[in-house]
């Protein structure tokens, strides 16, 4: 959000289980409608992931990140 305020379009990736916390931060920061991309199980919320898990998730998330940052989401 602070990057957005500084003029840099940004996207934050959040685990579904942490979305409530992320939205709470957004709300107290006055950005209730800040968009997040979410990750869900089988990826666990704490990112102690194997390299294979990282690569697989990156492959899944990349198109979503691109769409969000280019306004095509």
């Amino acid at each position: 959000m602070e990057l957005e305020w500084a003029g840099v379009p940004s996207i934050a990736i959040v685990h579904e289980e942490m979305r409530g916390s992320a939205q709470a931060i957004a709300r107290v920061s006055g950005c209730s409608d800040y968009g997040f991309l979410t990750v869900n199980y089988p990826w666990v919320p704490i990112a102690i992931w194997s390299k294979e898990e990282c690569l697989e998730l990156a492959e899944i998330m990349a198109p979503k990140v691109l769409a969000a940052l280019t306004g095509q989401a």
Partner: protein
Amino acid sequence: MVGLVANGLGDGEIFLDALYDELAKLSDLQAPLKVVKSSVSIPPEPGDWSRLTEEATVAITGFGG
């Protein structure tokens, strides 16, 4: 230039590197500007913050922990 802001938790940095590689396959990107926060619980160092806001055109971050 894509800014990557890693909070230093777990393997988030590996994930962001992999994510950048995947993005590079989908779009014409320059080199990434990667910042790893010096502590998980504080914002990036002032120098890193300046680089992000001055050089990055978009940024990707993670939230959690």
